[in-house]
């Protein structure tokens, strides 16, 4: 203990801060190792493709379902809020902008945390507590190259594509929903959307996706590899990992407007 005056709540806080710094440091090192492995072409492309299939392609249905529902909700709630105070075609802009700037990337990230992040942590955690990670080292393989890198790279590739898909579907269902509930036709919907459209917004959306695509698997792998304590440890670490991933995504999301929308 470094500070003798740190007791009770302040001690707990100090420990939390310490732990956070430890996580951050270890994740930084992991990122460095991953970059090194990728630059040196030490990562099997077959393994990457396999993970793109498991992580990216298999997630398409659930991501599309979530995006579709978000489009519908945004359009209906937007319509309710505005009630006749503004021209109805403004709905086009509201749906497109909220889906592209916020809901598409963030909701896709949350879905992927549940579907992929948790799975990576549990899988690597189980390998850790059953000595499979040790076994990998013992046969001269590096778990960062064999396990971590294909997952992180696959997620970096998949996230922007999934978010692009989610954006399209969210806008589409938002438009259809506006047609049925507000009587807003497709043409006037897109007229409204174009009024406030910057093509930069799509870039902004995909940039978010890219960062989320790095953060999620990085945390998932890191948490998995530091798992200890049998089946119970795997359960506990997976929960902690999901919480950490969600918080990190929200913090990154909150940093985006001041950094990239000025």
């Amino acid at each position, binding site marked *: 203990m470094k500070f003798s005056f740190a007791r009770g709540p302040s001690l707990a806080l100090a420990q939390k801060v310490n732990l956070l710094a430890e996580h951050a440091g270890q994740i930084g090192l992991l990122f460095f190792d991953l970059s090194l492995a990728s630059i040196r072409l030490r990562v099997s492309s077959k393994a990457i493709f396999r993970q793109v299939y498991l992580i990216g392609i298999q997630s398409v249905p659930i991501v599309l379902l979530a995006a579709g529902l978000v489009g519908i909700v945004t359009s209906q709630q937007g319509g309710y809020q505005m009630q006749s105070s503004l021209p109805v075609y403004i709905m086009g802009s509201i749906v497109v902008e909220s889906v592209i700037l916020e809901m598409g990337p963030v909701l896709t990230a949350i879905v992927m945390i549940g579907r992929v992040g948790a799975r990576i942590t549990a899988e690597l955690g189980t390998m850790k507590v059953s000595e499979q990670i*040790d*076994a990998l080292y013992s046969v001269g393989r590096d778990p960062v190259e064999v396990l971590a890198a294909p997952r992180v790279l696959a997620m970096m590739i998949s996230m922007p594509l999934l978010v692009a898909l989610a954006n399209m579907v969210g806008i589409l269902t938002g438009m259809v929903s506006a047609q049925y509930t507000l009587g807003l036709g497709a043409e006037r919907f897109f007229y409204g959307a174009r009024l406030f459209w910057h093509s930069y917004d799509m870039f902004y959306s995909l940039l978010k996706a890219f960062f989320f695509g790095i953060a999620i698997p990085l945390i998932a792998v890191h948490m998995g590899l530091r798992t200890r304590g049998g089946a119970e440890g795997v359960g506990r670490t997976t929960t902690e990992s999901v919480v950490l991933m969600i918080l990190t995504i929200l913090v990154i999301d909150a940093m985006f407007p001041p950094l990239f929308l000025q």
Partner: protein
Amino acid sequence: MSELTKKIAIQYQGIAKAFDTPVLSGIDLSVNSGEMFALFGPSGTGKSVLLKTTLSLIVPDRGDVLINGESVYFGNPDTLNTVRDIIGYVFQYAALFDSLSVAENVEMGLSERAIKEMGLEAVQERIWESLDLVNLDPGEVWGKFPAELSGGMKKRVGIARAIAGRPEILLWDEPTTGLDPVNTAAIERLIKQLSEELHVTSLLVTHDVEGGLEMCDRVAMLEGGKLRFCGSPEGFRNSEDAVVKAFTDRRAANAALDILDIR
């Protein structure tokens, strides 16, 4: 390098390791080339930790390991790769890769360099041979996954993986714990046979004291973070140390409960 150091395959020098509490406090131990060496000790004394420091799976707080005279922790950074190449490690619970088939698991025992050099056919042959050496029917288990195997079969596949690269040194972490007497006898015969056929140096951690004393050239006992005994099997049998006695004699074991403060 002198003749003398050349003959020592594994040399632990003052290995110390603490986690929350001290586990190992300065272990000095040498295993000679070609020797079969048994390490006994109560559960939780750090036998696995000691074995793992050999391959840097756990890094000791102090001390060093020399493999064929080369320092694992303070030498050339490439030494560790070589060491992992020439040492086969048999894990306590087999630690097979769940997502890989039996054949793929055994193939992992070969280094990437070896796989490239040998070519597909020779690799397949080596996998077949290795499974055959551990008395598994290669044709039967080849494509199976670890979840489809019994405990004894898993251990054998784990051994096949450890010997696939034809190692100079084998580290065995309780290869017979949790097996029935028949399987225990079979695995023990296998250990002896492999050590002889493949001319490997074996360091064997085991709870089966009788088996260990019978098979091994020398034995040691780890207890309380220190080596409590190191010497010949006869010396172990005749030792007057109460804790050592507990391992050869059930009545002495009861007496030792008090000495070791176990409830």
